[in-house]
């Protein structure tokens, strides 16, 4: 059987020689990426692939919105027009501005249910021209998102293929399956709470403490990208090496810089 296949393959290659070189060789497709602007994530993933679907899943308070705002800030800073399909109208413009998102470059679509989200995403993909389209289903019940047929994600992926648009999906569980070129899973880590240095942390009154930030754990579940030295090029369908499959990154709050200065001055 294997001999027949080999003979058949060589016959086809001979017949197509001169017209199609190496018809059975897998071509390496080069795709550009855009940075998350978080060094640990960029080192782990190589950045957000353009013309592909990226899925970020995780429980509450695991850093999904932080990654979303970082990606939006990165794209809008480079003069791209971005769109956010907000599944439950939970986007905070103040938080976004603090993260560096240029709000005038962001088209915010405030939805109330999954049907509106999918129709809105479809319309945005058909319109085209966006640097990033984010579909935030994080607050919707996982059962609702699970019922979305796989061909929807497949259609979305086809719609962005060969375009410079990044399609970013955020949800609580991974639903896009193999349609996503990059899949990240976030995990909750304890948040940091600051306390005045002169007092023991546990004895400090609640009014003297501040939420200082957090650390989030990111696991690279699947990537069709391999960060090559000196650039981010799409090279093969191989999984990333186990040693680079996870990373942690820290966040801070808006007031962290001011609180440090205040505590130090005390």
């Amino acid at each position, binding site marked *: 059987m294997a001999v027949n296949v080999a003979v058949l393959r060589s016959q086809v290659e001979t017949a197509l020689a001169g017209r199609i070189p190496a018809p059975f060789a897998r071509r390496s497709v080069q795709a550009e990426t855009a940075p998350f602007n978080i060094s640990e994530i960029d080192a782990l993933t190589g950045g957000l692939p353009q013309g592909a679907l990226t899925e970020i899943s995780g429980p509450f308070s695991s850093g999904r*919105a932080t990654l979303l705002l970082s990606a939006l800030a990165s794209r809008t800073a480079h003069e791209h027009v971005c769109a956010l399909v907000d599944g439950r109208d939970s986007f905070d413009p103040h938080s976004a501005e603090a993260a560096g998102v240029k*709000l005038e470059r962001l088209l915010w679509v405030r939805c109330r249910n999954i049907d509106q989200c999918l129709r809105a995403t479809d319309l945005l993909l058909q319109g085209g021209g966006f640097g990033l389209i984010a579909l935030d289903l994080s607050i919707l019940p996982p059962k609702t998102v699970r019922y979305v047929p796989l061909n929807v994600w497949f259609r979305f992926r086809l719609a962005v293929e060969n375009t410079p648009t990044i399609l970013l999906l955020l949800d609580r569980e991974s639903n896009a399956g193999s349609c996503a070129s990059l899949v990240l899973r976030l995990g*909750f880590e304890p948040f940091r709470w600051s306390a005045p240095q002169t007092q023991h942390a546990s004895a400090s009154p609640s*009014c003297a403490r*501040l939420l200082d930030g957090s650390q989030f754990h990111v696991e690279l579940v699947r990537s069709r990208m391999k960060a090559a030295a000196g650039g981010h090029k799409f090279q093969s369908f191989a999984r990333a090496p186990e040693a680079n499959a996870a990373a942690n990154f820290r966040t801070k709050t808006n007031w962290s810089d001011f609180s440090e200065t205040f505590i130090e001055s005390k």
Partner: protein
Amino acid sequence: MAFASIYVSDFSIQAVVRAEPTLRQRAIALIEGCPPLERVVAINEAAARAGLDLGMTKAQAAQFPSIEIRQRSPLEEQSTHAALLDLGWSVSPRVEDTAADSIVVDLTGLASLFGSEEAIANLLAQRALDLGLVVQVAVSSNLEVALHAARGFAGITVIPPGEESRRLGVLPIQVFSPPVEMMETLERWGIRTCEALAKLPLLELSERLGQQGVQLHQWARGTSVRSMILAEPKLCFEEGMALEYAVEELEPLAFLLGRLLDQLCARLSARSLSACALHLRFKLDNSSADEALPAKIPNQHPDGKPIEKKVYEKLFTLPVPMRDSKMLLRLLCLHLQSDPPRAPIVRIFLGAESAAPRVRQEGLFLPSSPDPEKLELTIARLANVVGNSNVGSPRLIDSHRPDAFEMSRFIASHNAPEVRQKSLSATEGHEPVAAFRVFRPAPRAKVTLREGRPVHISFPGMHGEVVAACGPWRTSGEWWREDAWHREEWDVEIHRPAASNTDLFEHSPSAEPQNGVYRIYFDAIRQAWFVAGMYD
């Protein structure tokens, strides 16, 4: 110096045909008057050949086979005349508004732009076709000669200087539209052509026919000279249509709006302008509006004034100047789908505010952005899905009120690349700022306090022990308003031991214990706890 006169023959008929291009090859009769005494007031050549005559009643005209009978439409005639003026201004800034069916254009200085006089005449005829009109164009160095030649000769006529009398000679005297009595007198004398009129002795003619006879004599010889009376260029682009039957559905309405938009965009294109806003006005069917009212409600106000006729009016401002009629039609249809008129439509008015066309040059190093016209269409479609107020760009309001922002219209403008603004966020290796998700509307919570500090909290989809908390952070403001706020905020970390199934945060059966960091607040005005959102 040369003048071009543009004449629209069968003006009333052409005004109707402009709105219904399919009628162009048909025999058409226009009627006017109050039913049942409507009479034929205009017919085209095909109708005349079929035997129709002016003054016939509608019933008589209807007996002729394959005759299209339409109501004369002053509205469409007005639009057609405006289109004719636009045609003149598309070529020259000096245009005379001579009559409803004719204009005169000064061709001085246009040779370097458009070429010879014949080329200009051809251009005018072609542009008139684009506007839906079949015109007769005549060019002469004498204004009056051009005027009368356009009325008398079909197609394009160019009269070289010195040949005015000879060329006008073959025309009938009717082109000068003399008074009826003078026509009869000239008929009795056997004078039927301009050549014959020009040969009459001037002194004797003036004795018998007066100054009007002298005028006619000068016109016939092509020696009458007068100055142009310039018309002021107007930037008013409006098209209207009176409907014979009220339109109730969107599909036929879209068909009619498409025609009007085609005419409007052609006029804008002739003047090298685009539309930056569209005025849409429908006159609604009064009778059906009255039928909808209960019988006891009178048709008048108590003080005797009649209730005003219903009008549906909308103003659509466009993000960029456009003149693509198909794109504009799609935008109008999307808006009408979301906000349809309440009664059948009997008249349509469509106006455009003009602006200079959009000139855009892509930067070599700027990323591509959505096409503004397609983007406007996409936003209109999104508005149909989620509502007008739920699509746009967020704009922060300068206020201390929590979650203060407004939705503004999204316009994708490309500015020159700026230096990236410094912000508190992580850029290039710095820590990112922890994002916050807002719960809209904020769900109520039950909070257990111990020594003034929250220790247990439950709200739809979450309950658990508070393992860390900071606060209270008091904020209040705008006490003079009804929606003043006064709250005490806490940031709390909650440990949830088990899942619970609710509408807001439905969990899978295998959910593990989770933590979450939330912002809760005590609303001192409503005396209740709420959850503002969570850090994610």
